[in-house]
């Protein structure tokens, strides 16, 4: 910081005259930019330290991985497998983070000078330095210390999503929407991928270290339902039911215990089951149900009228599972439709305020003021979990979002859900019948053999 200030003074210092007439003093400490919408304080921008290490890492390509690979890898958990997993993490995390670091560095100066983005830049830079310095993991003890590093960093980075979202909202003054959306999508995708890798490794370590794991057991117990974070038998119907109950409960708390809530009717191929990362699925379905339920409730209706149900249809083929969420909540006005998937659309001021209320999108429920039981506990109660997974000890990065109270409208639910859906080669589509209702189609690839969707360097460098 100091060196920067010195630089400003020395190379561009005019003869500062102290006459009253001359107000053109360069204030090095901070420049207040007043705009109609917000006060952006451009502090002396984050120092740029030349780093040839970063340049080196940026050149390396990420090695995408598929759900199936993750599953097979974690199934027979021996010590050597665990070490291999640790070393994969060790390599991949710095590569992926270096790409994003470079992405932020190449944003326009004025955008990065914003305090939120600058904060994220610092976080990433520190994490990168930390990760690239980890020595080769050779023993279980090495792994344990590595895992500590991982966990700390994960916790530190819990604030990244709201900060990025706020920072980019404020950047709408300087960049156009498509650029912002492209940037946000890339950052999110990469973040999901790093967390998947890190959390999977942490979960495997936990399994390995847990009292009932036999290190010499090399064959998979056919009754295993989870491999780390991956739940092998996600049953679409059960998950929809679980999310439905949680969301309904949350909504009841916000609107009143006796407030009529639309029923969620599920039909179709009720047996459809597939392997997936449960927290991702619960997040997406939770967002979609939340949108529908809230929209239905907010429709004006007479006191005794029951709200129209939300119909969920599950459709299974050998390659995929498709879920259709169909509500009669009045649809989406045409003028909003183009901005639905954007991270940087209108209603900024309110959303910035709300985003500031979600301090960390992570499992620290105590900070969210909700009366009665914590929302996290409600969620745990209502979701169907197998006995072998002990999620309450490890909330994961999405549980904060999943169990936030309904009046906390962040405005990024749909684009985020889409990033999650597309992450494992799925898709999310929306059709609106304006004045009547909305249909949302979520497609999940069942086979798990598609690689994660990352933004490669080639596509980033291409115009």
């Amino acid at each position, binding site marked *: 910081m100091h060196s920067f200030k010195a630089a400003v003074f020395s190379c561009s210092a005019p003869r500062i005259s102290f006459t009253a007439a001359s107000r053109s003093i360069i204030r090095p400490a901070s420049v207040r930019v007043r705009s109609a919408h917000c006060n952006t304080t451009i502090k002396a921008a984050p120092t740029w330290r030349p780093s040839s290490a970063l340049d080196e890492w940026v050149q390396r390509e990420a090695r995408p991985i598929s759900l199936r690979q993750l599953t097979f890898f974690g199934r027979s958990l021996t010590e050597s497998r665990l070490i291999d997993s640790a070393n994969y993490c060790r390599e991949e995390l710095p590569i992926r983070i270096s790409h994003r670091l470079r992405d932020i560095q190449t944003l326009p100066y004025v955008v990065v000078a914003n305090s939120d983005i600058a904060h994220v830049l610092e976080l990433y830079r520190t994490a990168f330095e930390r990760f690239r310095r980890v020595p080769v993991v050779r023993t279980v003890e090495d792994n344990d210390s590595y895992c500590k590093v991982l966990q700390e960093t994960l916790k530190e980075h819990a604030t990244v999503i709201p900060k990025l979202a706020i920072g980019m909202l404020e950047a709408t003054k300087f960049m156009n929407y498509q650029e912002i959306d492209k940037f946000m999508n890339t950052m999110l995708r990469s973040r999901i991928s790093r967390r998947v890798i890190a959390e999977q490794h942490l979960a495997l370590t936990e399994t390995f270290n847990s009292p009932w794991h036999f290190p010499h057991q090399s064959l998979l117990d056919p009754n295993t339902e989870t491999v780390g974070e991956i739940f092998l038998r996600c049953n679409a119907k059960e998950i929809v039911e679980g999310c439905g109950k949680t969301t309904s409960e949350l909504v009841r708390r916000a609107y009143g215990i006796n407030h009529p809530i639309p029923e969620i009717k599920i039909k179709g*191929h009720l047996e459809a089951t597939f392997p997936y990362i449960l927290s991702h699925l619960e997040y997406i379905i939770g967002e979609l149900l939340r949108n529908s339920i809230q929209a239905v409730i907010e429709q004006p209706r007479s006191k005794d009228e029951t709200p129209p149900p939300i119909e969920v249809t599950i459709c299974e083929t050998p390659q995929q599972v*498709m879920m259709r969420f169909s509500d009669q909540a009045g649809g989406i*006005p045409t003028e909003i439709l183009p901005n639905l998937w954007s991270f940087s659309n209108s209603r900024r001021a309110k959303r910035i305020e709300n985003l500031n209320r979600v301090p960390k999108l992570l499992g620290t429920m105590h900070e969210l003021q909700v009366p009665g039981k914590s929302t996290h506990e409600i969620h745990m109660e209502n979701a169907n979990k197998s006995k072998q997974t002990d999620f309450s000890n490890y909330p994961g990065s999405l549980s904060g979002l999943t169990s936030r109270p309904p009046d906390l409208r962040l405005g990024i639910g749909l684009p985020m859900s889409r990033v999650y859906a597309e992450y494992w080669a799925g898709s999310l589509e929306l059709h609106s019948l304006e004045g009547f209702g909305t249909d949302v189609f979520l497609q999940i690839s069942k086979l798990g053999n598609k690689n994660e969707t990352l933004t490669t360097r080639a596509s980033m460098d291409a115009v």
Partner: protein
Amino acid sequence: MSQIPRPLSLQSQYFGRWCPLSVRKQSVLPSSRYARRLHTSTVTDDDIARLASLPLHPLTLADLVKHGRPPLSTQQLLSSANFTLSILPARLAHRIRSLRNLPFIVVSNPNISQIHQNYLHSLSTLLPWAEKDIKTLEDEVKFAEVMTDLVQTHSNTISILARGFLESRKYISPKDVTRFLDEHLRARIGTRLIAEQHLALHMSSQPHYDISEEDSSEAPSDFIGVIDTKLRPAKIVQHCEAIVSEICELRYGVRPHVVINGVPDYTFAHIPVHLEYIITELLKNSFRATVENGMEREPIEVTIAPFTQENGSRFESQATVNNSDQGNLDVVSKTFTGHSPPESTLNVDSEHIRPLARSTPGVTIRIRDRGGGIAPENYAHIWDYSFTTFNEDEASSTLGGVSPGIEALNTISGGGGDGVHSLAGLGYGLPLGRAYAEYFGGSIKVQNLYGWGTDVYLRLRGVGKLD
């Protein structure tokens, strides 16, 4: 034998109201004798080049109704005739140029060549009028004959083109065919609409409608030419359901039924013939899929959802009718000739993109079936012309001779029992339906739930609030 694709409005009970016996006898209805009696002048290449270089303006529904509500006065009728005259020749010339830019070997095909001749003929009947305005009623009647001839000459275009392209499939790729047809058929929608609108207004105008001979206490019609200002989509759906389920029963022995929900009483202003075509095609697809999937007990669900109106909505600024939706740009020529037509900068010029009138009510119609969805390998091709999951022999046989398939394509409307005997035709239903929907700024979206069924979302915009 009904060869004339009269707009539904003319076929129906309104015909009697508008067209009293005295006028009918004057035979504004064509016969081939009249084609020869029309005054024509030779079309030179210069004419075509000159006319094709004129820019085309997007046509809105508002344009069609701006001359007034029927019955039109003489003045209004003449203004409608002059408006029609001012825009048709350029459009025809564009089509001729576009056709001439197709590969030689394709245009040599007798069918395609026939279409080319038809356009030349029509332009030749219009050229004598191009210099002057229509100022008298006699001129206007003659002009109406020209319009009738135009409509009749081009009534079989689609089937003839289909046959021509099928025969030339070795010489032109399906992608190029689709691109050409997308544009050509959209432009054709426009030219037919303009001509038929004027004809319908002509029939219902004061000079040609002897009020004293008819019951003058009838309520004013809701029609303005071919536009029905109180069109009820639910009624059209029921009408189409009746037709399609007949065919279905004929072919498969079972008859799925349709359930209409949403707001069945909703009405808006649109062209009944277009809507009928689209809904018939979509229902045909749904019925066939439903039956072949063994789900005939399941109803096909049609939801009618009117647009909501918001005060001062920014809806207008985003709702535009543009040249590419209406096939006015002739981008296809670029493919084959390698250079763009002279006014290709047109699409950037915002003056040519006309916003729709304020508060344009519209409707979304969702058709939901349990037909098992569309297989992924087929899904990529559903918008191709001549893509059909019927095998090629059947397709060829429906094209040859006087088969019902052709009749289906000729008549714009579903046409009663007029020979629509096949549920699957030549693969034109979806792309042509989309052309009709998109012509005035609507859309068709197909959402596939492979393994369960299909949802189709049809959005249509109406004409703005009329006085």
